[in-house]
């Protein structure tokens, strides 16, 4: 009977395509919105994932998330270095500064000042130039996206057509000269500001003077050091909080999840997607079963067992679920591949298709269960009632 069940399903083409599109649209809404949500959330801690070198990120205890800068005293680096189990510790500057372009345009940018000696916490990928070029005078490295967009030279000094910012161009940070020595690829920030890497000492020259300039301390553990014990000792001896990259990511992520309206906004769209599926596909499948109830009834009268009839309904529901889900995920994936990441945060993690599949399974199981219940309750003698 499986082939007959499928022929019943595919044969009712209007309803079949309706169910298929309903489920596909539901999957699309759920997975696309979830992927954008994850993409946006990833940007909130993008710098942490871009910086794999430190074992520990040491911050002020009142700092709530990555960009919630609570600068530390410069002695914090030395104090951390003195703790047993710490192999190395370097300062990091991270802050927003105004960049002046040669054509007079001004652009708020995120400046990341990395340790002058070790260059730890540099950009993850260099597209032009080398990280060590930061040791040249006034050197900065600019992220590729910004070089094409915010830092695009509309009136290049040499004249001619507008062009992207490139190695050798001169910018101004806080009225100080900055020369582009490299182009890198870095994860876009949540607020989409351009990212500029330079050395810690140069970043603190660019930034307006403050008593506390160290945004955070990055540290590496000695071989065999007890990470938990080191974190505890840092807290006891310095009063600072230390987190692993994973913990700091989670702290940042949890802040955005709990303290902002973003999850509710995206959650609403995702729930809406689920209800679209229930309303369109679920309802259509239920109507499909209702329309076929007389045939199920006739088969029941002829001697079809409950197992056979339920198997038919289950096969029909699971077939439309698999096809609708597949179509929806395919459209979502095409959307993700087509729309540039710099314009839309889109990150399809393996969990998202699972969540969408779970929603589709719930929709189809619920509608199939109601359909099955009708089939089970069906009195075979009803077929004589016309």
């Amino acid at each position, binding site marked *: 009977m499986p*082939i007959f069940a499928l022929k019943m399903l595919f*044969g009712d083409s209007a309803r079949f395509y309706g169910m298929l599109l309903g489920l596909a649209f539901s999957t699309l809404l759920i997975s696309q919105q979830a992927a954008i949500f994850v993409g946006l959330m990833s940007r909130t801690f993008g710098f942490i994932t871009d910086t794999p070198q430190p074992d520990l990120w040491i911050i002020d205890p009142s700092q709530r998330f990555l960009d919630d800068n609570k600068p530390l005293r410069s002695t914090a680096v030395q104090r951390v270095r003195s703790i047993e189990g710490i192999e190395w510790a370097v300062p990091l500057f991270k802050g927003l500064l105004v960049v002046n372009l040669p054509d007079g345009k001004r652009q708020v940018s995120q400046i990341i000042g990395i340790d002058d000696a070790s260059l730890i916490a540099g950009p993850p990928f260099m597209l032009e130039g080398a990280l060590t070029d930061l040791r040249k005078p006034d050197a900065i490295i600019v992220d590729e996206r910004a070089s094409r967009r915010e830092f695009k030279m509309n009136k290049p000094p040499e004249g001619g057509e507008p062009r992207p910012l490139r190695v050798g161009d001169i910018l101004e940070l806080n009225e100080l000269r900055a020369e582009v020595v490299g182009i890198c690829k870095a994860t876009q920030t949540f607020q989409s500001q351009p990212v500029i890497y330079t050395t810690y000492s140069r970043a603190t020259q660019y930034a307006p003077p403050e008593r506390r300039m160290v945004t955070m301390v990055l540290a590496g553990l000695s071989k065999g050091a007890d990470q938990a014990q080191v974190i505890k000792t840092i807290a006891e001896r310095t009063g600072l909080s230390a987190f692993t990259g994973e913990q700091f990511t989670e702290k940042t992520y949890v802040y955005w999840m709990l303290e902002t309206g973003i999850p509710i906004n995206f959650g609403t769209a995702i729930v809406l997607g689920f209800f679209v599926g229930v309303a369109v596909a679920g309802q259509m499948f239920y109507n499909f079963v209702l329309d*076929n109830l007389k045939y199920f009834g*006739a088969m029941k*009268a*002829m*001697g079809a*067992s409950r197992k056979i009839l339920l198997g038919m309904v289950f096969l029909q529901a699971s077939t439309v679920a698999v096809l609708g889900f597949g179509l929806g995920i395919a459209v979502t994936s095409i959307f993700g591949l087509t729309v540039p990441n710099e314009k839309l945060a889109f990150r399809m993690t393996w969990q998202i298709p699972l969540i969408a599949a779970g929603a589709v399974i719930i929709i189809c199981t619920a509608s199939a269960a109601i359909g099955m219940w009708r089939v089970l309750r069906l*009195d075979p003698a009803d077929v004589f009632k016309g």
Partner: protein
Amino acid sequence: MTPITTPEIAVRASGVEKIYVSGDTNVVALRGADLEVRCGEILMLVGPSGCGKTSFISIIAGLLKRDAGQLEVMGQDPQALSTEARTAWRLRTVGFVFQQFNLIPTLTLAENAAIPLILQGMDRRSACEKAREILNYVGLGGREQSSPVRLSGGQQQRVAIARALVNSPKILVCDEPTSALDGATGLHVMELIAQVGRMPGRAVIVVSHDDRIYHLADRIVRMDDGRVDRIETPAARRNTHV
């Protein structure tokens, strides 16, 4: 038309009662109906609406449980069987022809006719092959791959007859098989039922309001108010009504 009757009794019902309970209301459908159907005969169950015909054939076919009385169909009381066993018994023993045909429009004629065989476990190819033979027998040879929606009402009922007979049931139960058809088509369909249904060892029970087909029966059982009122032959009925 010569009836091939045998002394064997296909259905023996005595004192069958059926009460439908709806809230506080009890509706008595059968009040001690008695009936014997012989193997090889075509028996027509007639009577006014609400007289209990449909309830009676539903109980005989094992679709409905009786509240009282005795029933034996081909030596078996269907009510004595479990639900699963009764379903299997129905599949082996009873063929159905419904008033509204109940052909699945998205299946071909051969596939519709093959359903009982597939339910019995036969593979689809063999079942459809056997269904083709019986479709040919009911005059629809060459149209096995057609869709039921392309057929006239009479042709659809022929497919339904083929479906009812494809697994050679012992009892053929037909519920108003001609009521959805025009007079001439209805007569042809009933002639087909009489032709292919009348077999040694098989009984045919037809519920009908259509007095134009009564002459095709061996016996006519008239029901009234939940009981068998009288049993007559078509010839006797003709004499009574002249």
